[in-house]
């Protein structure tokens, strides 16, 4: 029981990879369910507003796009590439901004998100991976079951990662922990800001309600969904250009809406790469933003694989 932890791997001394506590599991899974339901409620509210009041306005879509981009980048550039993979260095203010934006996505506080993601990389597509579509079996039915699990089922089934094991670097960062502790305040801010902005522009309470729905709830659902495409489809559908030891894929149709994270085979092949575009045509919006941060002097030490490293892991055309 104590020789291996629930991720199935040998324990490292006294510190386990996951925390086997029913209450913690239940509260994290409840959190996922509430966030998902809030997003769906937003979609319903938007439909009602559109039917009862007026059609979706350009302001609604603009508020949605702006907050989707800012908060989505908080997750992809901040939580994923900077905090989980240390793919580049950034100024304290940039780190804080990325952490706060990422928290607004309501996918868990930054330390939790990073710990679970590092657990994913350690076991990618093997038993212990919190969200692999490839572990349910190979029949058509099992493939669908696996995809459903990796899309949304995992959000209410995943283990509780132990931050002492997976995220000690973040636990030691006092400023970041200050942000991490105020997680629910950032979620609230991510709902209040679009409501306030939209209300101010439209000069009406209805405008504020629409801002809450489009920039808050529907945006929340959309950012959840792009992450779910990565956890499921980006380990199932597309090309495998590099040896990565798992089933991760590259797929431009996933890469565009996921702000570049759909170059997921590139990512698992070279997890520390800050920019996931390895070919001129591989559009990576998050990578462009990292280059922009670098240009502004806010980011440096941008990790990139050398051409030799790329060539060495390149799979033969098959």
């Amino acid at each position, binding site marked *: *029981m*104590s*020789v291996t*932890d629930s991720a199935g791997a040998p*324990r490292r*001394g*006294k*510190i*386990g990879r996951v*925390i*086997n*506590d*029913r*209450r*913690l599991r239940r509260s994290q899974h409840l959190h996922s369910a509430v966030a998902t339901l809030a997003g769906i409620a937003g979609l319903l509210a938007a439909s009602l507003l559109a039917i009862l009041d007026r059609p979706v306005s350009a302001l609604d879509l603009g508020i949605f796009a702006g907050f989707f981009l800012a908060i989505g980048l908080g997750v992809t550039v901040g939580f994923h590439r900077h905090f989980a993979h240390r793919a580049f260095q950034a100024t304290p203010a940039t780190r804080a901004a990325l952490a706060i934006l990422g928290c607004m996505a309501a996918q868990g506080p930054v*330390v939790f998100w990073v710990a679970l993601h590092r657990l994913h990389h350690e076991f990618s597509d093997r038993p212990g991976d919190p969200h692999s579509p490839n572990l349910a079996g190979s029949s058509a039915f099992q493939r669908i079951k696996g995809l459903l699990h990796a899309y949304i089922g995992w959000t209410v089934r995943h283990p*509780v990662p*132990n*931050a*002492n*094991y997976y995220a*000690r670097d973040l*636990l*030691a960062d006092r400023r970041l*922990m200050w942000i*991490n*502790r105020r997680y629910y305040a950032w979620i609230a801010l991510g709902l209040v800001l679009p409501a306030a902005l939209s209300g101010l522009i439209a000069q009406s309470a209805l405008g504020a309600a629409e801002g809450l729905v489009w920039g808050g709830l529907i945006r929340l659902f959309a950012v959840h969904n792009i992450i779910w495409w990565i956890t499921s489809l980006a380990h199932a559908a597309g090309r495998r250009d590099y040896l990565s030891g798992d089933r991760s894929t590259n797929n431009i149709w996933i890469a565009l809406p996921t702000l570049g994270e759909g170059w997921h085979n590139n990512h698992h092949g070279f997890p520390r790469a800050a920019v996931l575009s390895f070919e001129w045509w591989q559009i990576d919006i998050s990578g462009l933003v990292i280059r922009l941060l670098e240009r502004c002097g806010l980011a440096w030490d941008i990790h990139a694989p050398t051409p030799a490293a790329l060539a060495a892991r390149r799979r033969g055309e098959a």
Partner: protein
Amino acid sequence: MDSMMSERAADPGAAAIEREIAGWMRGYLAELLEIPLEEIDDDTSFDRYGLDSLASVGMIGDLEEWLGVELDPVLASDHPSIRALARALAADERRRLLLTRRLRLPAASRP
């Protein structure tokens, strides 16, 4: 609280449990903080060691795994030092029975 303390003092089992748990916790903190075991002090608060609430939740989770009993994840904020936590765990009479059994297991099955 006072009655619990005197009860504990009267029970040699409680003292043994307290000792075992404190020993495990010293080892845990030394491993986590990467400092020598001798530098771990039973009365220094977890806070002083730089453990914030999240790290102590992880620590309680690992303690839970080692003891094989369910613990409150936020136990360490109510009992914020090795001595306070070990004492609190040994103080509960019902849990003491479980712990006595658990800690007497042969060393090979411990992590």
